[in-house]
């Protein structure tokens, strides 16, 4: 029976060298990949620096090139006399605030517009409690002037509670009203209340979270609603019916009436 020569028999040193090299490479790769993890934060109180450098070069024109004095124009008919110096005295006083005076710019009368306005890369904090978006964003929240609907607690027995909550929240709610389509501003929240009327848990419904992720108007509306909910707490509601108002879902904010739409 022939013995197959062990691989080491050919020259064990090659194996050792190869193995050392290989392990060295892995170690180097690991160092390269994970070196950030070895940095220890200077101060646990410091938040991670997530400022975004918009551009390594200056965002604004580095220096406006010398521009001819604005008064010296290549106007078809040449100007005949030097421009009168603008005088503040000639002008009427401003009613409520100091009025700026003209200056005749000598060197850089006009700031050179920048060559490009870099898209402001923005690193936003995770919004709306980092809810994961459902696969399919819901285009708009369901419109309708429903006040109370459905079964269970959504009936006349709870209409007074809904009104009580509404009357306490509305003072704090100042929605953005500039969107071209008011439906972008309708947002739904899932609000959990503590027995003392303070906010126990708050998150946008998955549909609102998904829409806010892709629509700046919806995001602004969702944040305005969240500010309102926090600002107006605690809510005064009958404690004996806590089991009815402990969870409010959906708590809908719909500014269409305010916008006349």
């Amino acid at each position, binding site marked *: 029976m022939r013995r197959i020569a062990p691989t080491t028999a050919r020259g064990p040193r090659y194996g050792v060298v190869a193995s050392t090299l290989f392990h060295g490479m892995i170690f180097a790769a690991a160092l390269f990949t994970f070196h950030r993890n070895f940095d220890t934060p200077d101060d646990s109180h410091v938040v991670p620096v997530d400022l975004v450098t918009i551009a390594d070069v200056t965002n604004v024109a580095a220096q406006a090139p010398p521009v001819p004095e604005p008064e010296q124009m290549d106007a078809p008919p040449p100007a005949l006399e030097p421009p009168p110096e603008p005088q503040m005295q000639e002008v009427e006083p*401003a009613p409520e605030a100091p009025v700026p005076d003209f200056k005749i710019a000598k060197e850089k009368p006009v700031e050179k*517009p920048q060559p490009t306005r870099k898209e402001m890369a923005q690193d936003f904090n995770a919004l709306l409690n980092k809810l994961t978006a459902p696969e399919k964003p819901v285009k708009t929240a369901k419109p309708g002037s429903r006040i109370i609907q459905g079964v269970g607690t959504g009936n006349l027995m709870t209409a007074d509670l809904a009104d009580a909550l509404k009357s306490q929240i509305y003072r704090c709610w100042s929605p953005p009203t500039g969107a071209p389509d008011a439906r972008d501003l309708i947002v739904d929240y899932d609000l959990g209340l503590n027995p003392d009327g303070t906010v126990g848990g708050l998150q946008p419904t998955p549909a609102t979270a998904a829409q806010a992720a892709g629509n700046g108007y919806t995001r602004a509306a969702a944040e305005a609603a969240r500010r309102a909910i926090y600002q107006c707490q605690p809510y005064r509601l009958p404690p004996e019916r806590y089991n009815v108002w402990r969870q409010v879902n959906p708590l809908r904010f719909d500014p269409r009436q305010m916008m006349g739409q």
Partner: protein
Amino acid sequence: MKRYLVLFAALAALWTAPALFTPALAALQVDVTQGNAQPLPIAIPDFVGDPQLGANVAGVVRADLERSGLFRPLDPRGFAERITNINAVPNFGSWRAVTAQGLVTGQVTQQPDGRLRVDFRLWDVYGQSQMLGLQFFTTPENWRRIAHMVSDAIYERITGEKGYFDTRIVFISESGPALKRVKRLAIMDEDGANPIFLTRGDYMVLTPRFNPTAQMIAYMSYIGNKPRVYLFDIETGKQEMLGNFPNMTFSPRFSPDGNQVALTLETGGNSDIYIMDLRSRAMRRLTSDPAIDTAPSWSPDGRQISFESDRGGSQQIYVMNVDGSGQRRISFGQGANGTPVWSPRGDLLAFTRRTGNVFSIGVMRTDGSGERLITSGGRDEGPTWAPNGRVLMYSRALAGGGGSQIWSVDVTGRNERRVLTPGSASDPAWSPLIQ
């Protein structure tokens, strides 16, 4: 067997129990449909780092946001917490105590290479989280523009709409007695800072309009006693006549791509709207009605042009396709309606309404519906849109021929306020966001 039945019953009970109890645990449903529109209270302490520039930048940001009417910057003297490190999480409780809902912390530092570095963070005081963090580099002279960019970023993050603070206004500066008034082309920042004369005042100038890159201005001038349209290059200061026509041209407006200018050309007593291609200088006629057709304004997609015409007996607003087809009247309100200006957002037309001696600024949808007046001065005309389509500026004539002022108003009709200019000013035109 009996044991299995018990087990089955227990399982069934477990299965059905939630269904039985769910109604009692169902959540309350609430619709909030009325609110309390208030400017957002926001705290903007002076930026740290360079003390002078830090105070200057924060001051400009406060003024920008306050002017918008959507924010209420709080008095820094009332702040309990002193920001020293913008990378540390602020004590949100102390900011809630001064009623702030937003907080801006920032830093201005001089770089070794002489550049200025401006960092800032926007915090949600109730959400206790950072909403935005940005960093800018610039030359020290440009600190005002950086401050405006900071304001724009905050405005956009909070309202969901683009800002408009890093923009400029070109306007007509008026001086001298009413009978011998000198009208000069002038330009200033959106907040009224850095006003500069662009022309000498030898000739009357009117109706300046920016091109889409804010580097070129088209306007009408009475050089040689003949009103004609000129172009002014802001960078070089050069002027040129736009086409040499025997008759007067006026009311210019750049196309959204900047390659064409729509204007009015008067021939034989009849004014019609033309489009001039700026490269070939070829003119194309759009209207041929014997009435006065003027004040063209492009839709943002460049496909339609609104204009005013008195072809129906009184001055009214019309819309046509960019080839001149499909001309149709869209304004049917009271009085005369003119100077339509298409919103950069495309949803509205701003216009001037004249009823008797009362002039007001209004807006309507582009089909003429939803018309409403938004100014209250009674002598307001010549609207121009902020690049975000949310705010308008216009001229307000003072009583007794005492000159005029520039005013601004939110498209909702709220926040009507004067734009401070040195002396009398009219005919404002709002630039796009500076590139």
